[in-house]
C-alpha cells in the first residue's frame, strides 16, 4: 500500500519540469475540488474561487490510501488553506502538505497555474 504513497512527492515550483495541461477552468467546480488524471497518477485540484487561488495535492488519502481527497471540503486554518479528507476529516495544509491534526502523515502538494483559461499542474 505504501507504494501508492511513494509515487507522490511534493514538487516545489522551482523544480517544475513540465506543466501538465489539466482542463479548462470551467470544468472545475467553484470553491471546491476535482480530480485530474495526470498520466498514471491522480491529482486533486482545488479552486479557491473566493480568493482567486488554486492548489493541488495528491488525491490519495495518506491515512487509508483511498483516492478521495478531491471530494473533501476546502477551508482555512488560521489563514492556511486546507483540505479535509471526506473519510475521517483529517486536515492537511495545501501550502505545505503538512498534517494539521499533528499526526505523522502528510500529503504531497503541487504548483498550479492558470493560463488562457486552462489549468496546469506542475510536475517533475
Amino acid at each position, binding site marked *: *500500500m*505504501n*507504494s*501508492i504513497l511513494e509515487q507522490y512527492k511534493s514538487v516545489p515550483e522551482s523544480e517544475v519540469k513540465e506543466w501538465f495541461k*489539466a*482542463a479548462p477552468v*470551467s*470544468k*472545475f*467546480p*467553484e*470553491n*471546491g475540488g*476535482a*480530480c*485530474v*488524471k495526470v498520466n498514471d497518477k*491522480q491529482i486533486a485540484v482545488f479552486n*479557491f474561487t*473566493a*480568493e482567486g487561488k488554486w492548489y493541488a495535492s495528491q488525491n*490519495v488519502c495518506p491515512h*487509508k*490510501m*483511498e*483516492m*478521495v481527497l478531491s*471530494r*473533501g*471540503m*476546502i*477551508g*482555512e*486554518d*488560521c*489563514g492556511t*488553506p*486546507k483540505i*479535509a479528507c*471526506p*473519510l475521517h*476529516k483529517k*486536515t492537511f495544509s495545501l501550502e505545505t502538505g503538512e498534517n494539521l*491534526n*499533528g*499526526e*505523522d502523515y502528510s500529503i504531497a502538494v503541487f504548483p498550479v497555474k492558470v493560463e488562457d483559461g486552462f489549468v496546469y499542474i506542475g510536475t517533475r
Partner: protein
Amino acid sequence: MKTILVIGNGMVGYKFCEKLMAKTEGSGYKVIVFGEEPRPAYDRVHLSEYFADQDAERLSMAPRSWYEENNIELITNERVTDIHRASKTITTISDKEYTYDYLVLATGSSAFVPPIPGVEKKGVFVYRTIEDLDATMSYVEEIKKNKPDGKAAILGGGLLGLEAGKAIIDMGLETSVVEFAPRLMPRQLDNDASKVLQRKLEDIGLDILLNKGTQNIEGADAITGMRFSEDEVLPVDMLLVSAGIRPRDELAKTCGLDVGTRGGIVVSNDMRTSDENVFAIGECALLNHMIYGLVAPGYDMAGVAVDNILGGDALMPTSIDMSTKLKLSGIDVASFGDALNEAKESESIVYENKFQGIYKKINVSKDGKALLGGILVGDASDYNMLHQIFLNGMKIPENPEDLILGARGGEEASFGSALDLPDSAVVCSCEAVTKGQICCKVDEGMTTLKEVAGATKATTGCGGCKPMVTDLINESLKAQGVTVKETVCEHFDYSRQELYEIVKIKGIKTFEELLTSHGKGKLGCETCKPVAASLFASIYADTGNDHNVIQDSNDKFLANIQRNGTYSVVPRVAGGEITPEQLIVLGQIGKKYDLYTKITGGARIDFFGAELHELPLIWKDLIDAGFESGHAYGKSLRTVKSCVGSTWCRYGMDESVSFAIEIENRYKGLRSPHKIKGGVSGCIRECAEARGKDFGIIAVEGGWNLYIGGNGGATPRHAELLAEKITNEEVIKYTDRFLMYYIKTAGPLVRTAAWLDKIEGGIEHVKDVVINDSLGLCEELDKDMAGLVDAYKCEWKEAIENIDEQNNRFAHFINSEESDENIEFVSLRDQKMPKLWS
C-alpha cells in the same frame, strides 16, 4: 569549574547533555562529549526511515551549533580507548588525554552477531548505524545490478529485524525473516498475536520463517545461503543481522569497573558504577540485572545521573515500564505491562478478527479490578488509554472487555476521556511529561499541539503519545470552552443556536454572505460550512444539491462514502413495508450494479460498493421503479422503524406500520443538528425498539405514548415519556414541536439524548414548551415544521435532472472517462467487500 566527560553521543548521551544544560544553564561545568561516529547524535529509533529518504539531517537530535551555543565541546570520529580511574583521565585513539571530575559512560550497545560459522562472509551486515545502512543499501544495489532474482534475509524477527525486512523489500529484493523462536517479536507478543502480525507481513510480501536455527553461512567468499539443517538451505545473496544487542562495556571492563556476567556495566539505581565518579546510562548500563533496550528508560537514567552529579539524590524507580507502541510497515503493534502473562497471575481477554487482521488481548487481575498488561496488533488506537490505565492503576469497567471491544455498535470511544487521568500521569514517557504539565500549558493559553510540544517537549521523542496529547489539549480546551462560550469554530464567534437566529432573522441565503457579515476570514472550514448548510436546510428546506460545496461530503454526493471511497445507497422503505414486486426490483438493481446487499438495522436494504459515477445511474433506476434513495447519511431523519402492529400481530393494539409510514414520509428530508431516528411499536412488547430512538411511539390502551430523547450507540439511553394516551394528531403535533425546538436550539452534532440531558429543566421543560406552550413558541414551531414538510423535494431526482456536464460532481476524473482503478474488492460469502485497509 568541574569537568564532565561524556563518552558516547547517541540519543541518551545527547539527552544527558540536554538535561544538564536545562538544570545548570551551562555554568559551573565544562562538558566534553566523545562520539565515535562521524556525526552528532541522531534518532536511532527512527533509523529505518533513513532507508526511504537517506536524509540523515532529519534524524539529527541537535545540530553542532547546539553544542557550540551551550559551550559543550563535541569531539566526533574519535574513539576513547582507555579510562585511568586512579588519575581520573581518559585517552583517545589519537593519544589525546583528558581529565575528568565526573565520567559518564553512554556507550550504548552494538548489534549482537551470533557466532554462526561463516558470519564474517561478504554480504553479511548489521543494522545499527547510518553507516551500516549506507553499506547495506549499496550492496543491495550491487545485487540488483548483477542478479535479477537476488534474495535477502534478515536474521532476527524482532522489531528492528522486521523493520529492516520491510525496508529491503521496498528496495526491491525478495526478503525472508529468519527467527529462532517460534514467534515474531518473542519478547512482546504471544503466539496468536504473532500469527496475526505474520499474516499481515506476508501480505506486504515478507517471507517469514520461524523455529529456524542457523547452523552455517554458506558461500566461498560472499554469502550464498543459510543452512538450517543437513537438508535445509535458504539461498540468499545478503544477510542483515538483527539478533539483539550487546552492551558496549569493553572500556568499563579494561578499567576494572564491575560488569555483569553476560555483559553490561553494573550500576546502582542512582546510575553510579562501582566507581562513584563514573556513571553509566542507557543500553550499556546493567540496572536490576537488566539491560533496558528502550529510549524512555535511557532518558530517565540520563536525568537521574544529571541530578546526582549536581548533588541531588534522584533514583531510578524499581520497576521500569517496558511498554511499547510502534508502527511496523504501517501495521500497529503494541505491548504493555505484563503482556505475556507467563506467571499466569491474570486472566486474559482476547479479541481476534481474522478478516481485519486485528488481535487485542488484555490481562486483567484475577479479581477483575486491575489491568496488568496487554497486546494489540493491527489496531492500537486503544493503546494510549490502556497504557495510562495500566500505569496509573486506574479503575477498569465492570466488564473489562469494554476496554478492547468498545461500546458495541457505538460511535464514540468506549472508556473514559484523557481528562480522567490523574494529573501525575506521565503521558509522554520519552520526555517524562505529565498530564498536569500539558493541561497547565493549555490553561496558560496555548491551544495547539505545536505550542504545547515546544513548551513541554512532549511528543518530541518517539511521538507515540501524540494522539493522547492532542486529546488532552482538545479536551482541556473544551472544558474551558463550556464555561466560556460554545462557538462553532475559529470562523464564527457564535453558537449554532445563535447562527440559526441570525440566518433566519436576517434572511441570509449563502455561506459567503454569512461569513462576510458575521464571520472571520475568507474561507471558513469543514466545521462551519456544514453547519451553515444544515441551517439553510432547516430554515429554507434547501437540499444537499444547493450550496453543494459547503455540504459535508455525504450530503454533497447524496450517498454514504464507505471504506474504499465507494458509496452505499439505501432506498427509502418507509416504515419497512415493502411489496414482493418492490423487493424484486431492488434485487435487480443490486445485481445490475454488482452491489453488496444487506438488510440494515433500521429495517431497510443497504447497497454497498457503488462507484461515484454510478450513483446517478442507480438513483435513476430506483426513481423509475417508484423508489427514492433514502437519507442514510445526512444529519436528518433516517428511518421510522416499526413492528407489524395490529394488522397482523395477535397482540397489536394499533396500526404501527401505517403510522410509521405516515411519520417517516412526514419528516423525510428534515435536516437537523444530528441524525434522527424514530420508532413505532404496536404494543408494549416494543418490537420496534421505539424507546431507543430519538422519538418513540408506543400503542397503549387508549392511544399512543410518545417518548423522546432515546438513542442506542455508545451511550444508550431510553427515551423519556413526553405525553400519554394521545391521538395520532396529537402525536404528530407534539413530535413536530419537539423536533423543531431541538433543531433550533441544539449544538452541532448533538443528538436529542444529549440535548435533553443538557437542557435546563430536562423533560419537564420540554413538556412545558411543546404541550403547555410556556414560551409562546408553539405557533412558530408549528408553522416552521409545516413549511419544511411542504417543501420536501426528492434530492436524487433533483440531482440527476440537473447534472452539470461542465463540472460533473459525480465524475471521478474531470479530464478522463476512466474510473478509479485503485478500488479493489475481494469476495465475501458470495458477495464482495472492499479490500482490507493495511
